[in-house]
């Protein structure tokens, strides 16, 4: 196989951005995607795309657990068992990856999020973190990332209203956000009835609600690459579905037409990378070995290797390839697999009489939100936890297999259940907070000693449970939601905080973060702030695996910003002098 300048392992958001930037700089790039080719026309068109059973329940766009999955346990005293069907999280598969089926909730993390450890200790003292908390600073600040956030937002066409323009606070936007250099590329979306009820109640309670930013374009938009996108139809089939309107930003809608026409870029689908090949020094990668569509092993030589798969798969491939030292929770040494984190969900459903919310309309990220209880936006003194979450009321589309809530005390089936479903389907809505998750010594990823994937390789083993900060923050946020439910005059409200233990069974979030984290010290991080691996300087592990701990937001905006920063450093510095960027 002819050598190329760069190879991408997995072709979604991060590979798309890197491939565009590197081919513009003259590099030849091959993208290896384990899944199939898919594009808006014809794969995402109605009516076939609006099939809840096939896409949302049977996971048409998602990773196939029969081929590869993870094993899971709550702590290292237990024996990890295979996640036999995906539930808690559902990684994407195929061209565009999880960026096809996302909701489009696109955030910038708070300034505090990047300096979690140092700011928490400075304000509350070291004891607040707890002995086993291994959360740390990122090594990059919000201010450094701002231009890259801006670039990703103008690639996608994010719709929203600034709450902080160059330090000037703007009511109606998110007044807690870090300073932005300019307004969003598109105005906010048209809000739904439930969004407005939530906003009104939050204002009455003295909070600062705003219409949340979204990658579902509020109007047709030509992006900063010259690609014409459509406006959202509020069709209600967003999360777990592809978008036929070219309104939800994805690789397909923002960059694919350019890459498709780019002679220096080649996509190979049905190509599953098995490992990164290193030279005898183990300090340099010489390419990757993959299985092609026919099942043949193929070696693709490359000068640069980018792990651009889902976060968990990036960590898996590093462990399989012997890149970096695996983390050992007993000693706290090693870095690959360290600081695996996730996202908490706190919230529930509110029920009303004689109101019609039409929640089958909507878009993935249409919603009202408030950030009063996220990050360090409120005083945590005496509360014995750090962090929080963005409190949302989203109108994402109520498809009935997944959404048919009933009030407390309703039987689970039979005539009374049915009557409650009929009564409340259109007279209820949900609220949910994306909560931050701190890193702990005992939460990590490594290779399973027993279970193997379809290709004979050890499965990734996940050892994870909620810690002090998650439980306490979740209880706190649940209390705020109960206040809001009462202020809205809800007849009934079912508001849940975290269960005692994390379960891999019910769907919660596909925001699996960490495991190959960034930092400034090779002893406590796997990659530098350019997501370049410390141990093999021509291998980059790009994605949410680099988050040292997770913020109380969806991750994609930050992944996009970090990726643009990496691309710039490679083009401006690495190509002139290959080697460590930090």
């Amino acid at each position: 196989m002819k050598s190329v300048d760069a190879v991408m392992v997995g072709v979604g958001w991060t590979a798309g951005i890197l491939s565009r930037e590197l081919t513009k700089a003259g590099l030849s790039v091959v993208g290896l995607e384990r899944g199939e080719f898919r594009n808006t026309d014809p794969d995402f068109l109605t009516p076939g795309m609006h099939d809840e059973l096939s896409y949302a329940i049977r996971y048409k766009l998602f990773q196939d657990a029969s081929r590869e999955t993870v094993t899971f346990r709550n702590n290292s005293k237990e024996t990890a068992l295979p996640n036999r069907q995906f539930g808690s999280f559902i990684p994407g598969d195929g061209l565009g990856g999880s960026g096809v089926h996302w909701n489009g909730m696109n955030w910038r993390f708070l300034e505090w999020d990047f300096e979690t450890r140092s700011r928490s200790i400075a304000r509350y003292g070291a004891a607040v973190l707890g002995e086993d908390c291994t959360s740390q600073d990122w090594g990059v600040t919000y201010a450094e990332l701002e231009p890259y956030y801006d670039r990703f937002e103008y690639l996608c066409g994010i719709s929203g209203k600034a709450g902080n323009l160059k330090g000037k606070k703007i009511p109606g936007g998110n007044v807690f956000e870090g300073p932005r250099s300019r307004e969003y590329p598109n105005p906010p979306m048209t809000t739904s009835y439930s969004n407005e009820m939530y906003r009104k109640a939050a204002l009455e309670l003295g909070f600062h609600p705003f219409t949340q930013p979204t990658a579902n374009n509020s109007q047709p938009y030509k992006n900063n690459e010259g690609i014409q996108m459509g406006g959202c139809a509020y069709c209600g089939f967003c999360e777990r579905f592809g978008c036929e309107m070219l309104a939800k930003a994805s690789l397909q809608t923002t960059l694919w037409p350019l890459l498709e026409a780019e002679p220096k870029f080649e996509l190979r689908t049905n190509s599953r990378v098995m490992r990164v090949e290193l030279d005898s020094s183990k300090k340099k990668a010489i390419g990757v070995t993959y299985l092609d569509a026919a099942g043949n092993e193929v070696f693709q030589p490359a000068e640069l290797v980018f792990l651009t798969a889902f976060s968990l798969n990036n960590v898996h491939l590093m462990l399989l390839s012997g890149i970096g030292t695996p983390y050992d929770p007993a000693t706290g040494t090693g870095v690959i697999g360290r600081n695996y984190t996730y996202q908490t969900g706190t919230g529930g459903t509110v029920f009303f009489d004689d109101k019609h919310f039409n929640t089958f309309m909507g878009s993935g990220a249409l919603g009202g939100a408030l950030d009063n209880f996220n990050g360090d936006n409120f005083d945590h003194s005496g509360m014995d936890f750090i962090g929080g979450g963005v409190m949302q009321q989203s109108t994402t589309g109520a498809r009935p297999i997944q959404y048919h809530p009933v009030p407390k005390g309703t039987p689970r089936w039979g005539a009374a259940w049915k009557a409650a479903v009929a009564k409340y389907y259109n007279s209820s809505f949900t609220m949910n907070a994306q909560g931050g998750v701190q890193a702990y010594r005992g939460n990590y990823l490594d290779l399973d000693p027993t279970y193997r994937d379809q290709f004979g390789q050890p499965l990734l083993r996940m050892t994870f449970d909620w810690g002090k900060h998650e439980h306490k923050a979740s209880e706190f946020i649940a209390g705020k939601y109960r206040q809001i439910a009462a202020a809205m005059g809800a007849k009934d409200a079912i508001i849940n905080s975290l269960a005692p233990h994390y379960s891999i069974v019910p769907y919660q979030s596909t925001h699996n973060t960490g495991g190959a984290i960034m930092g400034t010290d090779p002893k406590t991080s796997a990659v530098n702030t350019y997501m370049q691996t410390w141990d093999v300087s021509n291998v980059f592990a790009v994605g949410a695996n680099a988050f040292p701990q997770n913020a109380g937001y969806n991750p994609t905006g930050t992944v996009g910003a970090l990726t643009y920063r990496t691309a710039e450093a490679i083009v401006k510095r690495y190509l002139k002098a290959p080697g460590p960027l930090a």
Partner: protein
Amino acid sequence: MASASAGKRLAARKGATHWRIDSMADSVSRKGFVSLIGSAGIAAAVTQAPETAVAAVTPAAPAAHHPASPHAMPAAPLGSEPEAYAFFNDDEAAFVEAAVERLIPGDHLSPSAKELGVALYIDQQLAGGYGAAARMYTHGPWMPGTPQQGYQLRQTPAEAYRLGILETNAYTQKTYGKTFDKLDAAHRDDVLTGLEGGKIVFESIPSEVFFNFLYGNTVEGFFADPLYGGNRDKAGWKMIGFPGVAANYQDQIAKHNVPYRVAPVSIADVQQGKPVAAGHMLMHDMALANIKKMKEGR
């Protein structure tokens, strides 16, 4: 009533295939009956249907079940399509029909899950990749886990049904002297409650696991697009006011507290070019126009 109808079905199952037209004549309006037998295609499908098709086409008597709402009756009577059970044997089909009829019974809101074809939906799912655990990790070693670790049984969904039905019928034979499908509604509810809470103890798999498969798949079949065999005549969607295959709601989203009521649209409605609410076709046209613009921009 339920018992009698089950008995009639069972008798029919063991008998000749001509039973079907006769029994349907009992419960379908004269007009419906005439239009039914007036279709050569349907008549052919009936005579060629294998024996296992019997349960799929067993006519309920919706008018008798919920006289208050004749409008909720399926427009296309059960059995008007060449539908047949592919996975269930006769006993299993009888069981599942009798179970889903209690999980989602018929009333003024909608016909029952049985009448909406939910048993056929479950059958089709179990006959295909879902039933075979096609997208599940199925390698050992097999060990019991914590609740947080999820499903760790060797059984595929199809195998779980087969075992669960056998064991439930063994229980009802012992307790009531008959199979589950022949129990009256109250006793069926008692048995389902016993399965749900794990109070009826199976040898093969936990009974609540079997119940959860049955319950989850029943809800799926009630609300999934009718192309999968359930939600016949979109009655599940009509009950809650879900418009089905979505439309363009750009002009609707800002109409607060105003119910949006249209005849729901299925995938087949669009594919077959049936008249649907304007917003639905508008969305399709807009999507194509957007794609054209994107391509022209290049």
